């Protein structure tokens, strides 16, 4: 720590931070635009000017940009000096010269950094009397709105989009006061993280286009601390509601996971909650049709079914631990089946076993700080998108360190990038098809899943000869393995990433062996495994039986009732198998929030809460248990799945029916039943938590219309809804102080209305939230080296005559079930296709787009052919989770024929 003086007061600061960060970290208000805590400093906007004095005798001082200044011991700084205040007011006047002052019609109004900084800088009267420059706006796709007239030329957008996120279809055009930030022509922004421009832009140039369709000012929104339901990484989000509809999702900082950024699937997938296909009341099948029935009737019917005989339950990787546990309690552990494909079940079991023995899963922050990374079999951008953005920073680490050694601070962004140029640190990607991260890879390896596993095992063997050797490995692959091993060995903090992308367990084992070999060598290895859904790991930890066994069991005709929890089984097994199962599964009860192919087949459908209306605990792929809270109370008969199941348990006079009064009770039951899940109690404070006797408000204190919102129905103010499950209130009433991070619904402080107010909630800039980031880790590394090698090297991939190994090809937009139900995401999803490598396509005599017949184990579909140049011979790909064959567990051998 170093001491500096700001306006004569001493402050202890971290000398590795720049002067702006040091000031903001102490809560001092110093306005800025171009600096961003994750993007660093470039000194463009000149807004954070301060006076720096040579010594006590220096009365004049020098104006310096705080963001570009290294604080030195006993540095004398002034923010308040009149000359520098005038300068800052002059800068903002310059920035505002062309700004249209259209705050009343601008979506950014009320959460606008430019508004905040303008007020803070004291500029209010415009002296500029000439014409403002105006621009034509562009169509940028369904996610973002473009309004370039508001631009203040701070360059943050291009620094995020091009430099941080690796986008290439956007950038600054033109010069002087006419710089235009856009694309060469109208079109959908290609980068998967484009939505962050909404938060990165300090004003309203880029705004959330989905929110625009049901726009509400920040102060009129109700927020909750939540967790993204669209992949397994567990990014923290703040969804926002008004009048019972979800309006938008904004990032909720967690220094260990998402930091400042979300992926576009996570930000824009929320609209499934507002879908027309929502199930809003209980439905019972009467003949061929459904009839809506009252809650009490639904419970009666359900309880009579439950009492009737053998009942099984099928859990869900997208439902909370509590919901799954409630189902397991209802049907019994022996009748509780995983709602995932058997292939995925095997992978999850494999991964759970590996993580338990170690190395424990790393956080994304640890991955970011790795100095070499090996991605084995993963299409990270499509399966765990936010991790791809992290890996783009991982490859910069060596240059950040190099810069530091040369005396260039890490935060001096462009100087570090100049040193690095287009070079990047070691990142090796082995995958069956080209991935979006390949542009920053040092080398890629295109192969079938088994061959990818063999590369991994070979790397492990080179790192530690006591791990199994790979027989008959081609010389070029061995050479590549050697180069990968050498880089991992040379790294101080190597990273290994693998997971579910290829659907191949050997790939995961190989990755584990590489990680274990590195751990054995004493390296602090960052090991990460991707999973498909928000609670995949949590479900696996509850020890369900595989779905296939349920399908088998049904064949015996013994099952009276099947309860399906928040799951579309048609995504889990081929349609024919599920049809047969549902036909033989007795009375089928489905709890879900959206209509699916499965709810259509049910006898009884119970309306469950989607994530924004639910509370619960999820276990991310990092093994982090995190609590998510409902944003608003569900309407009508909709309730959390665990409450439906609790009600049934009650009707069956089981003790849980009485003892599970609120979420805390279920959490406690889970923690007692599963020692590995004991710590979920600490994921967030329980419902009894209070600050000075008060709950924590979900709505900002400036929330308007409270007393008039329902005036057309009732003039007296209704009692605010109560929340028995959390210490959060649904209104603006409550403790006006900072809650623990896990309960923080939104970021906002006096004078800082935008998301940039986050600076005020961190221990230091870009550091953890005060009191620690949300969530508890369930796996911590014991001695990783103690774990043995998995020792299961597969045989080399052998292409077959007339058949292809069909591997899954994941898509960030379309492969995940819930987000695909959001219109904006659906618009970006690909149409179903089958992909072949160029050589195989030529051999087959099929051209790009031409229809081919795909035959998988008794099912067939006609699909257009897509040529993926990198796909190895003998390997085909189908889009994961979409298209007519989406129930098949891939990889699987299939036939592809040209249709005549």
């Amino acid at each position, binding site marked *: 720590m170093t001491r500096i003086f700001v306006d004569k007061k001493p402050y202890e600061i971290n000398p590795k931070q720049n002067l702006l960060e040091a000031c903001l970290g102490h809560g001092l208000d110093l306005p800025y635009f171009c600096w961003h805590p994750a993007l660093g400093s470039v000194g463009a906007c000149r807004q954070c000017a301060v006076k720096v004095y040579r010594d006590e005798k220096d009365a004049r001082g020098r104006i310096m940009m705080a963001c570009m200044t290294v604080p030195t011991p006993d540095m004398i700084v002034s923010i308040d000096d009149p000359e520098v205040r005038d300068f800052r007011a*002059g800068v903002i006047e*310059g920035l505002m010269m062309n700004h249209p002052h259209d705050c009343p019609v601008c979506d950014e109004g009320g959460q606008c950094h430019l508004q905040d900084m303008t007020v803070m800088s004291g500029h209010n009267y415009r002296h500029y009397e000439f014409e403002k420059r105006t621009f034509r706006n562009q169509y940028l796709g369904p996610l973002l709105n473009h309004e370039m007239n508001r631009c203040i030329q701070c360059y943050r957008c291009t620094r995020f989009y091009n430099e941080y996120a690796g986008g290439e279809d956007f950038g600054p055009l033109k010069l002087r006061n006419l710089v235009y930030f856009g694309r060469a022509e109208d079109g959908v922004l290609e980068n998967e993280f484009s939505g962050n421009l909404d938060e990165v832009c300090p004003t309203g140039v880029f705004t959330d286009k989905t929110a625009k369709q049901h726009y509400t000012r920040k102060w009129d929104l109700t927020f909750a601390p939540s967790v993204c339901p669209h992949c397994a990484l567990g990014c923290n989000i703040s969804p926002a509601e008004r009048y019972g509809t979800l309006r938008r999702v904004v990032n909720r900082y967690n220094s260990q996971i998402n930091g400042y950024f979300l992926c576009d699937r996570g930000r824009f997938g929320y609209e499934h909650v507002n879908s027309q296909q929502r199930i809003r009341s209980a439905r019972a099948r009467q003949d061929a049709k459904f009839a809506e029935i009252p809650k009490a009737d639904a419970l009666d019917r359900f309880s009579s079914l439950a009492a009737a005989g053998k009942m099984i339950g099928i859990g869900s990787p997208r439902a909370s631990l509590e919901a799954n546990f409630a189902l397991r309690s209802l049907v019994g552990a022996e009748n509780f089946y995983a709602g995932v494909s058997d292939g995925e079940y095997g992978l999850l079991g494999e991964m759970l076993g590996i993580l338990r023995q170690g190395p424990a899963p790393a956080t994304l922050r640890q991955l970011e700080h790795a100095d070499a990374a090996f991605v084995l079999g993963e299409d990270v951008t499509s399966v765990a998108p936010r991790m791809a953005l992290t890996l783009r920073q991982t490859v910069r680490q060596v240059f950040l360190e190099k810069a530091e050694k040369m005396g260039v601070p890490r935060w001096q962004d462009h100087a570090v990038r100049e040193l690095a140029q287009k070079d990047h640190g070691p990142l090796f990607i082995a995958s069956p098809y080209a991935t979006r991260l390949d542009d920053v890879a040092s080398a890629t390896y295109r192969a079938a899943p088994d061959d990818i596993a063999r590369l991994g095992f070979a790397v492990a063997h080179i790192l530690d000869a006591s791990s199994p050797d790979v027989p008959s490995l081609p010389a070029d692959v061995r050479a590549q393995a050697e180069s990968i091993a050498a880089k991992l060995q040379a790294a101080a903090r190597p990273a290994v990433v693998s997971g579910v992308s290829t659907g191949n367990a050997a790939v995961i084992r190989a990755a584990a062996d590489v990680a274990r070999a590195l751990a054995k060598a004493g390296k602090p290895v960052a090991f990460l495994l991707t999973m498909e859904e928000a609670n995949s790991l949590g479900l696996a930890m509850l020890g369900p039986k595989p779905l296939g066994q349920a399908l088998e069991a049904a064949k015996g005709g013994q099952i009276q009732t099947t309860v399906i929890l928040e799951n579309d089984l048609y995504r889990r097994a081929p349609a024919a198998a599920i049809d047969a199962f549902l036909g033989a599964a007795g009375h089928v009860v489905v709890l879900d929030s959206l209509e699916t192919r499965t709810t259509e087949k049910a006898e009884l459908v119970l309306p469950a809460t989607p994530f924004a209306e639910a509370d619960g605990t999820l276990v991310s792929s990092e093994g982090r248990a995190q609590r998510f809270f409902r944003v608003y109370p569900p309407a009508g008969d909709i309730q959390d799945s665990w409450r439906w199941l609790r009600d049934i348990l009650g009707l069956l006079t089981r003790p849980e029916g009485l003892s599970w009064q609120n979420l805390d009770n279920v959490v406690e039951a889970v923690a007692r039943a599963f020692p590995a899940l004991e710590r979920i109690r600490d994921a967030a404070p329980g419902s009894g938590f209070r600050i000075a006797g008060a709950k924590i408000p979900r709505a900002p204190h400036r929330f308007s219309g409270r007393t008039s919102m329902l005036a057309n129905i009732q003039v007296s103010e209704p009692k605010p809804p109560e929340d028995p499950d959390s210490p959060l209130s649904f209104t603006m009433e409550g403790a006006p102080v900072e809650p623990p991070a896990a309960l923080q619904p939104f970021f906002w402080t006096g004078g800082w209305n935008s998301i940039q107010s986050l600076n005020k909630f961190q221990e230091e800039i870009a550091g953890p939230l005060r009191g620690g980031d949300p969530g508890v880790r369930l796996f911590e590394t014991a001695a990783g080296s103690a774990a043995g090698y998995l020792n299961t090297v597969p045989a080399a991939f052998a292409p077959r005559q007339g058949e292809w190994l069909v591997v899954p090809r994941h898509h960030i937009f379309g492969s995940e079930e819930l987000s695909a139900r959001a219109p904006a995401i659906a618009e970006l999803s690909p149409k179903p296709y089958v992909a072949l490598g160029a050589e195989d396509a030529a051999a087959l005599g099929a051209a790009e787009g031409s229809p081919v017949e795909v035959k998988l184990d008794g099912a067939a579909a006609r699909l257009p052919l897509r040529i993926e140049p990198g796909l190895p011979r003998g390997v085909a790909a189908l889009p994961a989770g979409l298209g007519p064959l989406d129930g098949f567990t891939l990889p699987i051998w299939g036939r592809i024929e040209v249709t005549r």
Partner: protein
Amino acid sequence: METPLTAKIRPDGEVIDLAAYERAGGYQAARKAMQMAPAEIVDQVKKSGLRGRGGAGFPTGQKWSFVPSGPDAPRPKYLVANGDEMEPGTFKDRVLLEGDPHELIEGMIIAARAIDAERGYVFLRGEYTDAGERIERALHEAASKGYLGKDIFGSGADFDLRLHMSGGRYMCGEETGLLNALEGKRANPRAKPPFPQVSGLFGKPTIVQNIETLCNIPHIVEKGPEWFQKLSLTGDAGTKLYGASGKVKKPGCWELPMGTTMRELLEKHAGGMQDGLKFRGALPGGASTDFLTADHLDVPMDFTEVAKVGSRLGTGTMIVLDDKTCPVGMVYNLEHFFAQESCGWCTPCWSGLHWAEEILASIEAGRGSMEDLAKLEHICKMVGPGNTFCALAPGAAEPLQSGLKYFREDFERHIREKRCPWRDGR
């Protein structure tokens, strides 16, 4: 009077070829330098007192000494000749580039030796097409004789030198903007530190040096630092290419001893003002220097002396203002140029210069007010040194702030009379 820089230039305007250049003693200095240790060359240049001729006047030898040397130094190292001569009123490098390209090449060979650079670029203003052709030819001539390329002069050292024609922005003449442009990026300036000597072109150690500066190098190596210092009339060493433009009788460019007075330039070399015109002032070193007036005619034109009277030597090529030319119009013209050439990176520059241009246009058109003068002064303050990212805007403020100081009455007359008194006749 010695004129080492221009001595070999042919009076007929044709370029001197390699054979003629060598006959006149060319490349002897390069041969000599190949026998010298790099540190010795740096030392000679330091001792000579040579200061950069691009306008800032930074001591050349000192700059070279910041380049990392030794076996651990990052590779490759680069030497870049800044021939992006786009400063309005400045045309001195052009004389050297078109007349004696081998002098530049020889200077670069020696400079590359001094900093142990293996790659070089001549970054040339896009409009200097004649110079471009001549340099290209000279590069081929030199390479064919083994003076460039691998193992130059049998020294074992390599020096690969190429020509790059600029896409054409004033910002490309700024040291770091030039480097970005050369890398194919927007010509935005870079923050210093790190200085280009440490992390420059493609992130490697780089020296960027003005053409005239480099052309001095062979002569310093050949004749020594003491000789070089004695060329000058004042404390700043060497000769200088001076120029004059505006309504003088004989506008031009001349190599004269450093420290020649503005009066001598104007009266002797430029032939005085055109008949019927009176001298009102001059920008002594190109468009981005402060006006000087008749009171300053006897100031010796060197870095030190011009600074003492509140302006800068700059490029040493003065733009003369006469009494029949509107000073407001002149300043407006200049600010139009600077506003147009702002790269758009830092706020005070892109907003301030545009604003200044608009105000000046309105004053010139007779729509100005007295408050506008305060606004212009405010803008000059906003874009002062240290407030902006690079030197473009502070340079742009120099003719404006000094114009407001020396020609305030002319500005006020425009406002009072609601017209330009020159344009509309008196």
